[in-house]
Structure formats: structure tokens, C-alpha cells
């Protein structure tokens, strides 16, 4: 059964590398979806099927659709990819690579410290999560709904077009 985890982890790592290394935004978006799906699988293996479902529905579903729309609206075609490639071909990648390699090495060193194998795993069932969400955490649910409303209102204002005569048009 360990194989499930290792394969999913390998897919997640490789697709994540592809996300940051592809110069074409559409390709990296596709890899991002792969990465998110493999993370969803990892949540599943971890015994949290409800979070896995949310990951697929909200992340790989809704948020990615937003990305697709933006990429279409911003017209990030071959020209942008060319710019990105030109930029990446220089020595510009060396600094970030070293930085991130150091960070990753440090993280691995720190986290490798002890192995906490726990017996008798517990499955996070949707019911329990929902009870927690609408029991002790109900205030924070309201707060996050305000956050989303605030984001929506702000996006509404920013997305409105302004005509030459200064009159605003509904989107």
C-alpha cells in the first residue's frame, strides 16, 4: 500500500516541477491541475477523503476555471511564452535554484528528525468535519464568507470598464 503514496508523491513532485518550468501558461496550468489531483489522492491515502473531494471540487474545479478564464482574457499566447523562455534561458535561474535547494535541504534535515508512526489510524469522515465546521468553527465560517464577499465586491469594482466619457458601465 505504500506504493500508492510513493507513486502519488512522485507524480505530485514531477508535475509541480513542470508547473514552474513550463514557459507556456496553459501547459503549466494543466500540470497544476495534475499536481492538485495528485495532492487530492494523497489526502485520500492519508485518510481524509472529504478534504480530498473538496480539493478536487474547489481547487481543481473552481479555482482552475478562474485561471483558465484569466489566461484567455489576458491572451497569454506564444509571445508571452517566448518572453518567459528568453528570461529563463539566462543565468537568472541560478540564484533561485540555490536558494530553494538550501531551503529544501534545511526543511528535509529539520523534518527528518523523528518518525512518529501512530497506530490505529482514524479516518476523517465528512460528518465529523461538518460537525466541527458548524459547531465550534461557525464564527470562522461566517468570517470566510465575508472574505469571499469582500473579494467579490472588490473584483466587481475592478472588473468594471470605464468609457472615454467617464461613465461607468455595468460588466
Amino acid at each position, binding site marked *: 500500500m505504500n506504493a500508492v503514496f510513493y507513486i502519488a508523491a512522485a507524480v505530485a513532485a514531477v508535475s509541480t516541477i513542470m508547473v514552474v518550468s513550463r514557459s507556456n501558461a496553459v501547459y503549466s496550468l494543466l500540470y497544476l491541475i495534475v499536481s492538485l489531483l495528485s495532492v487530492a489522492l494523497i489526502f485520500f491515502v492519508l485518510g481524509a477523503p472529504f478534504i480530498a473531494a473538496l480539493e478536487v471540487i474547489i481547487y481543481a474545479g473552481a479555482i482552475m476555471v478562474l485561471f483558465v478564464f484569466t489566461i484567455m482574457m489576458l491572451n497569454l499566447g506564444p509571445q508571452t511564452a517566448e518572453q518567459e523562455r528568453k528570461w529563463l534561458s539566462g543565468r537568472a535561474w541560478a540564484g533561485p535554484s540555490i536558494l530553494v535547494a538550501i531551503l529544501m535541504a534545511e526543511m528535509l534535515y529539520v523534518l527528518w528528525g523523528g518518525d512518529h508512526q501512530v497506530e490505529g489510524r482514524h479516518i476523517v469522515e465528512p460528518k465529523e468535519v461538518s460537525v466541527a465546521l458548524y459547531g*465550534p468553527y461557525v464564527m470562522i465560517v461566517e468570517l470566510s464568507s465575508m*472574505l469571499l464577499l*469582500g473579494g467579490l*465586491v*472588490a473584483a*466587481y469594482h*475592478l472588473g*468594471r470598464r470605464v468609457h472615454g466619457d467617464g461613465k461607468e458601465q455595468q460588466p
Partner: protein
Amino acid sequence: MLMLPEIIVVVTAMAVLVADLFLTERLRMGVTWLSLAGLAVAAGAVFATPMNGSMFGGQFVVDAVGWWFKLFFVISGFFTVLLSMDLLHGRTTCRMRGIGSPGEYYTVLLFTISGMMYLVSARDMVLLYVSLELATIPLFALAAWRREDIRSGEAGLKYVIVGALASAFILYGLGLIYGLTGQISLDAARVLKGSPAFWFAAAMLTAGIGFKLTLVPFHLWAADVFEGAPMPITAYLSVASKGTGLAFMFQLFFRMMGGWVHDWALMIALFAAVTMTLGNCVAIVQHNIKRFMAFSAISHAGVFIMGFLGPHDYGVPAMLFYLLAYIASTLALFAGIVWYSNETGRETIRDYRGLSRTNPLMALAMMLALFSLAGIPPLSGFVGKFFLFSVAAGAGFHWLVGIAAVNSTIALYNYLRIVREMYIEPVHEDGPAAPASWSLSITTAVLTTALVLLGIIPFFYNAINGSTIAWLSAVLPH
């Protein structure tokens, strides 16, 4: 009802959003009145709430420190609305296009204020993180509010990227702390000490705080965001965003990792020294008043974090008092800057020349605010700085006090540059024609009086000191 102030702010935000739909263009001012009334009532509600108590099983707790922070957030929100109203309703001589939609603007502004108020009451990581995001994500949009100005959009873009990066760091750090304690509550982490994973989490959280509080070397976004944002939002960023950063740092360093913060003191002192010095030195060469204020805010962040060096009952009142003095001085100064930019559309320091002859009262108020920021004796800025310096000296960081004193001199030179333009240089041939509107006049008058009184009358400091000392010695072990 402990949560009354937050509820009032949120309900006001919703009411503004709904009212904006039904008000005609002629009655559009109604949303401003509604926001002002809501914030005034919320300030009253803060006064009415007791200084201790908890709700939602200890998730939401009000204590003296949170009480003062909430009051400061509501006050700065109130004056930000007063600063914004002329610009939003197009009552300026220099008409700036694209700032419009007052209803949405106030809604988003009120949401950020409610986020800040929840932030200081949070006692678990979930509420802490969500309220921090509620306080910052709508601010990204406010920075980019002026759609037609390319600088505004650019400021929004930079702010989004840096803010998201900071929140990723904070979230990773919080995750590690959660793993170490196994509990989501902030209080559980106070016993932690020493393990490599803990140091790593602390470093990540410090980086996240550095971004939020514009500590050097995480300050690079500040100048561009301040310059690109609409003028009242620049004022709001320099007071409320600074207050949020400070409240967040307080929550993490004193509340969550209180048993450990003394081990980190040298690091904080180094951050303070570098931040002050770099902020002041880069401010010397600035021509644009918004960028100048950005670097002024950065150097003040260095002064603020000196409060984390001393013991809890000593640093916190000093920090809170200086935050109050800083809010009063900065907003009083920004009232003048907003007025000048509304009337002429210009924002370089050279443009303020001869202001003392064309508008002596405004020039006087701005001079007092600048002197307060520089720390000239009878004014509140001096008193606040004095307390913070004495905290650092009491903790044994005499070298830091020396650096801070040198920095005060550089800061004095910086602020005197503007005073010199206003009082010594010949009158600008194309200065502002109209006097300040009533909203800006009220802001200037109230805040200038406040910044003088705060320095002269010890009542305010005594009130802050008395209430917070009682709380801290009761809860935190030394």
C-alpha cells in the same frame, strides 16, 4: 456582548453595500454618512465592552491589549473614511477619474477593519489566519482601486504577490507549530522551546511578519505600493496596516511563543536597527511625498518592534501608546497631503513650498505632525519614542538605543525638509486655491489636538499602562 463592535462594523459594511444599490446619484453621500455612523457607534461599542471575557469556547477572547488595538483600528478607519470622502464623491478641484464606486470602497474598507478586530481577539490558528487574510486580501483591491492609473494597478499586483507569499510563509510556520504542539490553540505553543523544527517555524513566521510589517529586508514592496495606491489608502496602509502587522506580531510573539521571545531578542534588535537605519537613509533621497511616507513608515516599524525586547508588562503599553501617537500624527499629516493632492494633483515634496503663506493653519498642523513623527519633545511622538527606547535600554540593548538616537537625528532632518519647503521657500505660483473641505479640516483639527494632548497629558498613557499591566501580569508567567 463581547463581539458587538465587530458585529456593528460587519453590519455597517453590509448595510453600505445594500444602500448603495438603492441610493440615487444625488443621495450617494448617504453611504459615507452610514460608514461614519457605523464606525462611530463601533467605537462606542468598543468602550462599552468589558476588558476581559471570552466567547465560542475560548476562540474569541477580549482582553485589555485587544481592546486598545480594536479602538485604534476603529479610529483609524473612521478618519480614513473622512479622508476618502472628497475623492470618492468627486468634490475635488483636480478631478481624478476612476476612483468612483464609494459603496464598494467603504464595504471593502469596513471588511478589512473587521478582519483586524477579529485578528486581535483570535486565540486559535484558524481564526488568526482567516482574520489576517480578511484584513489584507481586500486591501490588495483597495491599493488597485484607481483602475485608470497604471501605477495603481501595478501597486495592486505587487501587493497581491508579496501578500500571498507572506501568507504562505505564515501558514507553513503555523502548520509546523501545530505539528509540534498538536493543538490549534495559540496558548498551547507557549511552552515550546528549542527544537530545530521550532526554530525553523519561528524563522518562517518572522519572515511573514517582516513582509506584513515592512521590516528590512522584507520591505521592498512598500514604497511602490504606497506610491501607486490612492492617497487615502496610502494613509490607511501606513497606519492600519502597520497596526495589523504589530497586532499579528504581538499575537505570535507574546501570546503564542511568549516563553521563547527572549531568545529571539537579539534578532529583533538587529531587525529594528537595520529597519530604522535603512528606512531613514533611503527617505533622504525621496522626492515623492508618498514614497517618503512609505520609508517613514518603514523606519517607524523599526521603532515599534523595540517593544518586543523588554518584558511583557513593559513593552506592550509602550508599543500601544506609540501606535496611538503614530496614528494621530500620520493621519494628521496625511490630511494635509490628501488636501494638497485633491486640489492640485501633485505629490512631490517640492510642491509644498510656501504653504505657510497660502494656508498657514494647514501648514502649522502639518508641521506639528511632522515634529511629532520626528520626536520633538512636548509632542506625543517624543513621549512614545522615549518609552520604547527605555524598554530597549531596560533589556540591555544600549547599542540599539544609540542607533535609534542617531536615527532620530536623520529622521528630524528628513521631516524638516518638508517644514523648510513650507516655511522658508518662496510661494508656489500654482498652489491650491481652495481651502480644505470640512471633513479634512475636522480630521486635521481633531488629530492635531490629539497629538499635542497625548504628549502633554499623561492620562492616556496611564490608562493604557494601567489596564494592560493588570492583564499581562495576571495571564503571562514571567
